[in-house]
């Protein structure tokens, strides 16, 4: 009980300074004028030297968006966003992409260093190979991809991994075929906004029968003052292909809220598999809930082919507001979708996250493991939909949703929706809510662990099932990150 009281006291004192990545790098930027209209969309498209079809595609999205309203159904609360008071394009002042590290802005490299980009990525950026395991990094700095490495190695296997702006030029037929095929232009308010103004992101294509020889990894970073961030990622695994993709993010601290509305589309054809892992630790805002990133993301995977598989693993520790539901459309027969999630909220953070598993094909299966941890005065909601279509005979879902509360001023909510139109479907749902007990804490302390370490240990135990899903190289970092994000949640 006393521990709980201290928790609350401590949470009240969380400070901006505690955010490890709170710095602003001073690379000069090129900004679009504030506001959003046809001219701005044309400006962005022109900046990127895009083909006519894409400009039209964007304009169509803009027209749709202008008729749409911001959704209000999520359990999040924030002041209205003035969408005309934002910049929709920012790029580091650099025209041609760098050919080598020497050409990369030293300020950018310094930023990576401060970000604590793991040694292995730094080595790779420096061109060092590490055993037989390689990681390719496509770093997105603000809106334009600046560094892409290991392209040659990937090219040898026919894997395309590049900024989507580049893919538009080099592989227009692929982009044209798949862009918006999973998340349609008018899917939802934020996705439509993204379609109109998306600036850059990653493009991955793994050809038939190819197992991508390395983990693909991207670090996102929001840097410009008042810059909307609209990443667009498109990943295609052709028949029998396999790819594992890692996305990690940090952002500097800001007084004004920063809007982030990304769209990620995954397509798995027959017998293909995509594993998509995210570690998100954007600035969560200060103790009063001021500042922090608004994260309104649409992530969806389409198991388009038979026997295909898509799995989402996410570790969400940052952002002031998280609105995110990585989903799987299980279209192909025998396809499989998985969602593993750790969502940690502290301070005044608000998380409304979960998944949608849409069973359309026969004998499709899905698994959802969600671990929500709420501390401080935060609110953490799991929102999940399992839907089974008329033709999806033999569909199976297993859902397990556990919530852990630290202190007594936070909230945890579970909102599962189940819609089944096929009587043969088996849908299982388990949910638990628990608290870190004072007895557990006392026991750890009695053995010499300081309180924060004790909390981190107990929480890491709670999320173990999901941690194990992360690629090895992310696991250790993530365990540390969990500790960092719970700092200040106790005395």
């Amino acid at each position, binding site marked *: 009980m006393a521990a709980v009281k201290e928790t609350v006291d401590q949470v009240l004192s969380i400070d901006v300074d505690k955010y490890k990545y709170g710095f602003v790098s001073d690379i000069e930027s090129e900004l679009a004028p504030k506001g959003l209209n046809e001219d701005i969309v044309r400006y962005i498209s022109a900046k990127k030297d895009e083909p006519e079809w894409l400009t039209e595609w964007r304009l169509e999205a803009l027209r749709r968006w202008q008729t749409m309203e911001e959704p209000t159904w999520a359990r999040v609360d924030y002041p209205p966003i003035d969408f005309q008071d934002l910049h929709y394009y920012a790029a580091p002042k650099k025209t041609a992409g760098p050919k080598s590290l020497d050409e990369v802005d030293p300020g950018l490299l310094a930023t990576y260093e401060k970000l604590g980009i793991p040694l292995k990525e730094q080595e790779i950026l420096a061109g060092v190979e590490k055993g037989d395991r390689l990681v390719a990094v496509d770093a997105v700095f603000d809106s334009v991809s600046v560094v892409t490495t290991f392209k040659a190695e990937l090219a040898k296997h026919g894997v395309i991994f590049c900024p989507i702006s580049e893919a538009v030029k080099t592989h227009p037929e692929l982009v044209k075929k798949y862009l918006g095929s999973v998340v349609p232009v008018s899917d939802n308010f934020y996705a439509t906004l993204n379609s109109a103004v998306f600036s850059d992101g990653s493009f991955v294509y793994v050809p038939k029968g190819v197992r991508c020889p390395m983990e693909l990894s991207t670090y996102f970073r929001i840097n410009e003052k008042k810059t909307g961030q609209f990443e667009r990622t498109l990943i295609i695994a052709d028949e029998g292909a396999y790819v594992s993709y890692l996305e990690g993010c940090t952002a500097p601290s800001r007084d004004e809220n920063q809007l982030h509305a990304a769209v990620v589309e995954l397509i798995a054809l027959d017998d293909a598999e995509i594993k998509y892992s995210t570690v998100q630790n954007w600035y969560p805002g200060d103790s009063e809930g001021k500042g922090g990133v608004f994260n309104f993301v649409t992530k969806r995977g389409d198991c388009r082919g038979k026997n295909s598989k898509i799995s989402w693993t996410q570790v969400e520790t940052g952002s002031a507001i998280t609105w995110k539901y990585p989903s799987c459309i299980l279209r192909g027969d025998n396809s499989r979708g998985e969602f593993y999630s750790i969502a940690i909220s502290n301070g005044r953070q608000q998380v409304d996250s979960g998944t949608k598993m849409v069973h359309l094909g026969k004998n499709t299966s899905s698994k959802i493991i969600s671990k929500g941890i709420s501390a401080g005065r935060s609110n953490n909601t799991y929102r999940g939909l399992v839907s089974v279509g008329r033709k999806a005979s033999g569909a199976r879902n297993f859902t397990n949703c556990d919530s852990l509360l630290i202190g007594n001023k936070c909230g945890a909510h579970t909102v599962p929706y189940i819609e089944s139109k096929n009587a043969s479907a088996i849908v299982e749902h388990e949910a638990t809510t628990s608290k870190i007990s004072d*007895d557990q804490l006392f026991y750890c302390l009695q053995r010499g662990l300081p309180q924060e370490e004790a909390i981190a240990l107990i929480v890491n135990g709670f999320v173990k099932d999901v941690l194990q899903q992360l690629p090895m190289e992310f696991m250790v970092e993530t365990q540390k990150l969990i500790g960092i994000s719970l700092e200040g949640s106790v005395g």
Partner: protein
Amino acid sequence: MLEIKNLHARIGDREILKGLTLTVKPGEVHAIMGPNGAGKSTLSYILAGKEDYEVTEGEVLLNGASILDLEPNERSVAGLFLAFQYPIEIPGVATMTFLKAALNSHRKAKGEGELTTPEFMKLVKGVAEKLNITSDMLKRPVNVGFSGGEKKRAEIMQMALLQPSICILDETDSGLDIDALKVVSEGVNALRSPDRAFVVITHYQRLLDHIVPDIVHVLSDGRIVRTGGPELALDLEKNGYAAYVANAAA
């Protein structure tokens, strides 16, 4: 080594310790016996720094310095260990991981670096084997699904690993079968040394047959009402607490 002077403590409105005084010198083994609800576990929790209790009067000194203002983890690294009457489960945290975190906290407090994994494994295997703890148990989450006896053995293993200077054992014998009682007692006896002291809380002489105490106390209604040698425990076993409890009330 451990000096408890006129300790008064309450939980909520209820006074549980009512002027308890006890001095434990290095190398000594003290047994505390007493009826259910007398305040034995409460005493152990207060010594370890559990927050639910409010100390209203008195002092607790460890090696001459007051510990009442220290956090539980600070008391732990200062050398105080409590083997719990009811060990706590921590789901998802492998026992091995837990031991490593605990040991590293102690090493850090002493200004020592972390052990390498092989060094650590060797150390743990050494203490675990002596207590018949299998490597399978070390992989399982802390106390989760352990039998009553396994939990108690695990407590003593932790104690052996952390090498505390004052060990408080709260009914470590309860739940142990005859063989386990022997194993645990041997584990404790192996740790006996001139610079380490034990406070053993128990209801039964059979533990004291194995861990022979220097001094036996009767704790009743929040106070030590009688202190004697090992023969006091034998007397209690035969005649019960009636005489002492009546004394206390008088």
